[in-house]
């Protein structure tokens, strides 16, 4: 579904990603783990068309999307639940969801996707006219996921979906990600919660200082001594 080859990204003179390659097969969950500042979010943003890579190619669903702006990438069905949720705080929940369906892809099925999002997250439906900025962190994360579903994505990249959430909510968010994957959505998961994300993932990559240093099945990385030491503190 998504194939990334030899990606390089610079912020001015600083290199954020160096020769990153990655393969996400259709229908799978692929985890990307790494320390803070390793380049995980930069990678997601580049794949989403928000940052422009200096070198390399990104192919999504058979189409070359390298350097395409984010609105074109979204239109092809590559959705994103961004780091920090990035909801629209002064707009209502209903308006936030509507904004997820501005792209043509979402517009065609807006009603169905609205039903889908509010069935998964009934709490959103109870507060449609409330300003999104007044929601709790967990509710904002639900809104961010719901908003993403409004765009009818084939694949969703989750960037730190559990960051700053209460343990009970973390559980719920991961369950939702599982459910969406069962319903056929391909998932890329970037998480600081390394143990959980490796358990969930079919395949995983380890990113260090902008380089992909390791890859393997989720299980094999979970049992790898280096990963256990560096990320699991064992």
């Amino acid at each position, binding site marked *: 579904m998504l194939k990334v080859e030899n990606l390089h990204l610079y912020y001015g003179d600083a290199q954020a990603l160096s020769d990153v390659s990655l393969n996400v097969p259709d229908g799978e969950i692929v985890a990307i783990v790494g320390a803070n500042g390793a380049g995980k979010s930069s990678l997601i943003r580049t794949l989403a068309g928000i940052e422009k890579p200096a070198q390399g190619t990104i192919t999504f669903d058979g189409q070359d999307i390298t350097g395409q702006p984010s*609105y074109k990438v979204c239109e092809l069905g590559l959705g994103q639940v961004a780091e920090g949720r990035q909801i629209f705080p002064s707009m209502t929940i209903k308006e936030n969801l509507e904004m997820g369906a501005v792209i043509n892809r979402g517009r065609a099925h807006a009603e169905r996707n609205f039903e889908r999002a509010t069935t998964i997250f009934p709490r959103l439906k109870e507060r449609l006219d409330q300003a999104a900025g007044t929601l709790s962190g967990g509710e904002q994360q639900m809104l961010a996921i719901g908003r993403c579903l409004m765009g009818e994505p084939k694949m969703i990249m989750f960037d730190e979906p559990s960051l700053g959430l209460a343990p009970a909510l973390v559980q719920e968010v991961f369950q939702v990600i599982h459910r969406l994957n069962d319903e056929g959505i391909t998932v890329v998961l970037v998480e600081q919660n390394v143990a959980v994300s490796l358990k969930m993932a079919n395949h995983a990559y380890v990113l260090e200082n902008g380089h992909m240093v390791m890859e393997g099945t989720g299980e094999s990385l979970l049992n790898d001594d280096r990963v256990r030491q560096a990320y699991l503190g064992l």
Partner: protein
Amino acid sequence: MTWDTIANIMIGGVLTGLVYALMALGLSVIFGVIKVVNFAHGEMMALAMYAAFVIFSTYGLDPLLATPIIAGGLFLIGYIMQRALVAPFVTRPEHEQFILLLAVAILLVNGLLLIFGPDAQSVMVEYGFDSFEVGPLILDKVKVYAAAASIAVALSLLLFFKYTRTGKAIRACSDNLRGAQVVGLNIKNLYALTFGLGAACVGAAGCLLSMLVDITPMLAPELTLLAFIIVIIGGLGSLSGALLGGVLIGASEALAGLLITPSMKSLFSFGLLILVLAIRPQGLLGKRSS
């Protein structure tokens, strides 16, 4: 001086102020979304005033009826200006944006000077001296029409932002730009639309103001300054603040004319500005920046 006179003059000031408010609304819309201050705002207004003057003197078309045409024309100019000129400067330092728009302002004023000369022109509609009498009050017909049209334009803009998909998408860009990228909004296009809408506001306001004041190219920098004062008094980026600020400035100008002399009107506007900056620096309806 009787109470009737005072009331008449103040109401006249408020009516003119509503036209100023529409002008300031345009500035506020552009700043609120794109975060670029349009330093050529008054100059674009002067352009619209001359457009109204030319249309009136050539075809005899009442500026009230020419308002949609001129607003449409300014919308196009604003849209193209954002796409071709301002867009590459959006992420650059503010002083570079300032120089760019100042250049546009200088070109516009001097272009108008070249074409129309420095002398004042005026648009004199047939009902220019008519008035409505409401009890003891005598309301200038032209002012009432211009104010009503300003309210109509401002109201339709606010409804556009509240209810249409595109209007909401523009608000989303202003609310959280990263979020707008995440959901795949076409930001370049929405920014151009926004600049176009701000320009359309100032176009409509200029067209309406052409009925109330004499038109000279040198009015342009004064109007830019006036728009800033209004927006700062009302609160940067606040649309209702721009409307309130416009009305207050209109009333304070009228009061200056009444109490001292009309040429002292800027004294009152600046006085009001200093007062607001001292007491409530974020503007009357502005949000305190965090």
